[in-house]
């Protein structure tokens, strides 16, 4: 129920004084279908898509004119005009214009980090409600002028006389006119994310067949989830798109196995990573509504799950100590240890499929006795992930991966899965989220059915 806050202007205290930490509840989520780059959202900006995702969330939960405690979202590929992206999206939405907002950016972990950060504010009693989210457009990506041209233009701006201006313009060389488009290359290694993962995939001896099978399952599971209406209250269509355009419900292992490798081609016969088992560039946006249990009850809204905890990690990929996308391998054991849990205590695993090889390398590292002892400081291997509990409603290989929007997609879907599962052996169902990110980072989180 939309309850307009009449004490506008921030006079009402949104939180209560810090006492014992409170639970941060996931009420639900909304995203727009993810579109392959250059597709349905080719003319949509980050702000357009984030606003659409917000408005769908507002409609689903009746949040019109509501002053939400805080909204946090972000994008990985940002235009300079997106400097206050989230606040601008809030102002364009049906929320109360008195809702504060901030941008956050942690590469592909952006979306999950907004959930964790806002949950912490709720737990601390600083706010009672929050919306976390993320958006990315690879279609509408910013293109910058070359560094040379940029310096010349700035000098030109400072020049005072026509003579000075002419001199400066004379410095322009043809090579300066080539635009500087964004890429997924790591600044410190010059290698693309796919090339980095190809090294890791080979290091952990992940087979082509295993990668194709993981991709096949992702498409099959996502299509099945659509068919049974799982996404009916998680997605709002946008620009004529009802489902993730990357999804191939009819793909087969044969088709996937026929694709040529695109990454690690210098590895020869060990080149296993194809367009079929890697995520494509994607456009999309997602949002998650978080609150205290009391706020959800007062608004007659569901309580799907609670955000128990989160953990970030980073690896030294620059010197080759670990693979670029392997940070979650270290974050998960730390998170589980903090709660006295093992992999066997988890009912759903949501491991972001940047590449099939990323997921499989992660699982291989956790199953490796030596790695567990020497790198994780355990008595042996961390353990085995029951594959029947892994990405059961599909993940990024099928849905696509608009960088900052992936965290929100996973959190909302997992919260709904946990709610449907309810309890396991008399305790609330548990879910683990793992998201790898550029820069050798990883963010993981633990959710529990509410």
């Amino acid at each position: 129920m939309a309850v307009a806050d009449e004490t506008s202007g921030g006079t009402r205290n949104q939180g209560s004084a810090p006492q014992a930490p409170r639970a941060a509840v996931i009420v639900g989520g909304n995203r727009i279908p993810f579109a392959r780059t250059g597709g349905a959202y080719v003319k949509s900006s980050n702000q357009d898509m984030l606003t659409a995702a917000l408005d769908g969330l507002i409609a689903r939960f009746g949040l019109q004119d509501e002053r939400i405690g805080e909204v946090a979202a972000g994008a990985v590929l940002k235009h300079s005009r997106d400097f206050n992206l989230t606040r601008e999206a809030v102002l364009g939405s049906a929320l109360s214009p008195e809702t504060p907002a901030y941008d956050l950016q942690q590469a592909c972990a952006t979306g999950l980090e907004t959930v964790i950060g806002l949950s912490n504010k709720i737990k601390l009693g600083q706010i009672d409600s929050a919306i976390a989210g993320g958006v990315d457009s690879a279609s509408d990506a910013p293109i910058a002028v070359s560094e040379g041209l940029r310096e010349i233009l700035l000098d030109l701006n400072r020049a005072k006389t026509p003579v000075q201006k002419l001199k400066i313009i004379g410095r322009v060389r043809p090579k300066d006119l080539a635009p500087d488009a964004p890429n997924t290359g790591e600044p410190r290694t010059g290698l693309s994310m796919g090339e980095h993962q190809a090294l890791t995939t080979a290091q952990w001896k992940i087979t082509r067949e295993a990668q194709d099978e993981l991709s096949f399952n992702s498409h099959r599971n996502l299509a099945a989830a659509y068919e049974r209406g799982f996404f009916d209250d998680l997605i709002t269509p946008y620009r004529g798109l009802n489902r993730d355009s990357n999804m191939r419900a009819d793909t087969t292992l044969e088709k996937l196995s026929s694709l040529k490798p695109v990454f690690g081609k210098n590895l020869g016969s060990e080149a296993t990573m194809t367009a079929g088992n890697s995520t494509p560039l994607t456009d999309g946006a997602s949002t998650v509504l978080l609150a205290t249990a009391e706020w959800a009850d007062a608004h007659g809204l569901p309580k799907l799950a609670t955000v128990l905890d989160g953990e970030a990690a980073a690896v030294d990929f620059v010197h080759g100590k670990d693979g670029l996308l392997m940070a979650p391998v270290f974050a998960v054991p730390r998170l589980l240890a903090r709660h006295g849990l093992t992999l066997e205590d988890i009912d759903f695993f949501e491991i972001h499929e940047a590449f099939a090889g990323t997921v499989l390398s992660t699982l291989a590292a956790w199953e490796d006795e030596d790695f567990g002892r020497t790198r994780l400081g355990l008595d042996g291997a961390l353990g085995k992930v029951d594959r029947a509990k892994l990405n059961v409603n599909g993940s990024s290989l099928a849905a696509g991966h608009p960088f900052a929007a992936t965290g929100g997609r996973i959190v909302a879907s997992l919260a709904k899965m946990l709610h449907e599962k309810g309890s396991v052996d008399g305790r609330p169902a548990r879910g683990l989220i793992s998201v790898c990110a550029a820069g050798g980072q990883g963010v993981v989180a633990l959710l529990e059915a509410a």
Partner: protein
Amino acid sequence: MTDKYTQLVSHGLGKDVAKRLGLPQPVVLRRYQPGAPLVTGPVLVIGDSAGADDIATTLLGWGLDVRRNALPKEELGAIVVVLDAVQHPRDLSKSVLTAGTSLRDLAANARVVTISRTSQSAPSPASAAARQGIDGLLRSLAKELRAGTTANGILLDDDLATTSPSALGALRFFLSGRSAYVDGQFLTVSSTSGMLPNDSDKPLAGKVAVVTGAARGIGAAIARTLHRDGATIVAVDIPAAGDHLAAVANEVRGTALQLDISRDDAGHRIIEHAIERYGRLDIVVHNAGITRDRLLANMDEGRWQSVIAVNIAAQLNINEALMASKYFKDAPRIVSVASTSGIAGNRGQTNYGASKGGVIGMVRSTAALMESFGGTINAVAPGFIETEMTAKMPFAIREAARRLNSLKQGGQPQDVAEAIAFLASDAAGGISGEVLRVCGQQLVGA
């Protein structure tokens, strides 16, 4: 809003030219605006029965300028002809002819309303003849009226006073701009249930209403109108229409429920959503519908089945869940959108006609089941309504369909919504199992 031709011939030169050429002269209809007066001028109440006196007293109580005898050359807002006591066709003449002498004094967008009794309950053949005679009289008169003026009738069961709550509710509806595109129609009042609203601009205050097919067109107009009348809206449509649905839900400050109503658990999902979010469910408007037109000779099973599934089977299924629910027991309202295609038929629409005829049958049968807990169920049958769908019709066919009614224009989605809002209100508690046509008195067909 109004079509271009109507705009052209409503003013100045266009008006003169149309008049000289004998072209149709539709006027811009008087549509309800919150706070607007009920009628545009004095109301002449005709009839010598006690029921007529009661109506005159009631209208005075509403603050209207009431006449029991016409003043020469005075422009009238409405004529109410009370014929509740007629025993024989001969008894009609005095009141009817009196009304006739005042017709030229009616303002544009005025109203003629008759109040009489149902012929089914008549005690004698002569009484039945008199009562049924009013049916033919009113429908003919409606075709004679000009300039947006309409004629509609209220039929009372035998033991009901002219001032029973829903008789007055129906009278207010017919007098007001809410009934702009309802012409030549009757509403039967069959019980003393119902009550007039405290605030006539917010007759649905405190109610929670579900509207299916709310993403666009008539459904979106229903959501807006029920919201304007004070209801909290649960807007339902298929997941694929979710973006339009979200826009409507945000506009009316309600919630969007993406749901395929032909799912087996649709009724349960609707009840669950309304109760969880709002703690109550008062009104369900079955508006969602599809067309899959083909001549029957070319009809495939898919086209036939999908229309039946969405347009009528889903309504039957949802109604079963509603009537079994403990949350749908406090004088609830169901209003279905039927169609004049379900009454008069339409070439190429055997499937659609079957589904919409089915809606009418369902409404009549379900009324008895709703009675025990004070619930009502009614249908509204739209004629030619200006929507995205009818805008796609070929020009000549559209123009013909638009003009072939007594008001010489298509209706607006809001017109359908206004009729639904009335039938969903407390004031309509004594009206159930009825089909109200919102068609401007379509000239062809039934």
